[in-house]
């Protein structure tokens, strides 16, 4: 799959929110590339900008935006140049679908599942009702739900089923990219595992590109080809999952991995003392410096992005292009 073309190319994306105390730098200068058919897992602690990144890509923005800049090349098109109407007509849901956080609870309780699921197809794809129904039945099978459940109301489905119905809704318009925001964190363990199986199957069979946003690094490994670690609005590491889970580079990624409890392996758990910085007035240098054990004088400046071959891209002064650790 490595020779696949780049589907999403994000460069210097910034999303700042305006507040009374000053601009909140929720997404600050984030750049990455995602290949078609790959899944990117965006991980990090709460408030690190994961969801804001998803919203910035989908342009689902609140009103208090102070900065929204950068470039997003999607399938070769610079979608930042689209005006809102064009974006809505041509990109959102047709090309990039999303499963927002807790969206399984956003189904209308008094409307049958089918009528809710065909709605985006009627609006975005201009399908006839009949076509839309047939298409929805198709994707219902893909996510492993019995087709007669389409006639049910949301309350007649369990949480895991509702979540799968929502994913079916996102897949119905055959988008190139699906953004999943914490798709499984509200589910029970077994439903979670079932859902991951379904997503994995979709990934293999339909070759959909996913961005999976989650705080659960263990579950992320079920689906991720690439892992992006966010900290205080910055993407501090972007790595191939193959290397990330055994050999994370950024000191924050390492600490984060060390804090994840494992079931099968016995390891010493560590925690990261202190708290992430405020995003209103973040420190000028590396944002993790205050909590970092490997801090040295250079860390008071914002680190460059260093490419370590095809394994990882890291924002940390410890690394140079050869992947050598400069200050041990």
């Amino acid at each position, binding site marked *: 799959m490595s020779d696949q073309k780049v589907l999403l190319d994000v460069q210097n994306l910034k999303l700042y929110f305006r507040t009374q105390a000053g601009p909140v730098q929720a997404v600050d200068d984030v750049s990455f590339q995602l290949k078609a058919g790959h899944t990117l897992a965006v991980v990090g*602690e*709460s408030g690190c900008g994961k969801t804001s990144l998803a919203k910035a890509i989908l342009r689902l923005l609140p009103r208090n935006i102070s900065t929204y800049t950068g470039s997003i090349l999607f399938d070769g098109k610079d979608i930042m140049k689209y005006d809102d109407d064009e974006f809505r007509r041509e990109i959102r849901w047709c090309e990039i679908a999303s499963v927002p956080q807790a969206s399984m609870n956003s189904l209308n309780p008094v409307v049958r599942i089918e009528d809710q699921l065909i709605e985006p197809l009627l609006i975005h794809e201009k399908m006839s009702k009949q076509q839309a129904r047939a298409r929805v039945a198709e994707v219902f099978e893909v996510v492993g739900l019995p087709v007669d459940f389409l006639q049910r109301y949301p309350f007649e489905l*369990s949480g*895991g089923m509702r979540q799968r119905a929502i994913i079916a809704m996102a897949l119905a318009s055959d988008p190139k990219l699906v953004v999943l925001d914490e798709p499984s964190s509200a589910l*029970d*363990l*077994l439903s*979670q*595992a*079932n859902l*991951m*199986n379904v997503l*994995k*199957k979709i990934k293999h069979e339909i070759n959909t590109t996913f961005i999976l946003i989650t*705080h*659960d*690094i*263990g*579950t*992320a*490994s*079920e*689906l*991720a*080809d690439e892992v992006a670690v966010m900290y205080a609005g910055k993407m501090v590491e972007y790595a191939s*999952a*193959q*290397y*990330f*889970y*055994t050999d994370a580079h950024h000191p924050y990624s390492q*600490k*984060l*991995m060390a*804090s*994840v*409890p*494992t*079931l*099968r*392996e*016995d390891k*010493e*758990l*560590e*925690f*990261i003392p202190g*708290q992430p910085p405020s995003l209103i007035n973040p420190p000028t240098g590396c944002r993790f410096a205050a909590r970092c054990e490997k801090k040295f004088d250079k860390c008071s400046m914002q680190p460059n992005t260093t490419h370590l071959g095809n394994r990882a891209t890291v924002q940390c002064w410890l690394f140079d292009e050869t992947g050598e650790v400069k200050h041990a």
Partner: protein
Amino acid sequence: MPSLAKTLPQEQKAVLRIEDLHTWFEVRRMGFFKAGDVRALDGASFELYEGETISIVGESGCGKSTLAKTILGINHISKGSIFFEDQDLSTLDKEGWKRYRSSIGYIQQDPYGALPPFMSVQRILEEPMKINGIKDKAEQKKRIRQVLEEVKLAPIEDYLPKFPHMLSGGQQQRLVIARAMILDPKMLIADEPVSMLDASVRVEILQLLQALQRRHNLAILYITHDLSTVRYFSERIFAMYGGKIIEKSSTVALLQQPLHPYTAALFEATSDPDAENLTTFKDVPAGEPPSLMNPPRGCRFHPRCRKIIKGLCDQEMPPEFWVRKDHAAACWLYKDKA
């Protein structure tokens, strides 16, 4: 954290003993016609020893929180008994209940929801003492200082006037723990204490609970849906399904080999961070947990179980089979191995 080689306590005093405990909730139709019972907790027996942690794992609706709340006296007991330090709770009068409640600390899942937003840290910590008759101001001050030091909310003077919204999630949870500890309890009930917290804070809170346990020889009932944290934290693990405890084991034995097919499925479903996961599918049973108003006949897991023995599992409720001295499963598969 010490490694998983925490073993069963030998010859220790049982703080809590539970015998055949049932908690049923009546469901009424149109206000007064009885429509049936939700058998949230349907027969649980065990002992919790001094200085020991028992983890109770299971999915939502399996009865684990009902168990906790019944022990706390929030839910009524439908059948069975609870003994606290050999005293039957059903014999307690109002004063007795108050004394009993003051000797168990309760740590809630959502720290923000558990802390009154209009009270300062100081008042939150004074409240349990006022209710339980610790009126001496000097004593109150001493205790507040002590618990806040123990949960590492320092410098103490900075925190006392703060309100819950001024604290981070981790700090709020530490305050909840401080409140649970202020009456110097013998036992803690922690209902999903870390599930709302970030990974790095999670470890911090669990280590804090462990340190408190060692210092005060606390018995802890740790309720969680997250199997991966239990190995670092408990001596014994109980798995619950459909209102029943279906497997009881020492942590070491369970991690080697879960016996009950449901526990095995929970194991399979838990993902460790590992890039290999990408290539494999999880072998987990489909379906949903049973309705507790109308539970299936026989073993409650049998409709989802692949190892079902027809004519037995769907007819008769399996008793506990003790396969080893520290490992039991309520499953007919082990009827000849006990």
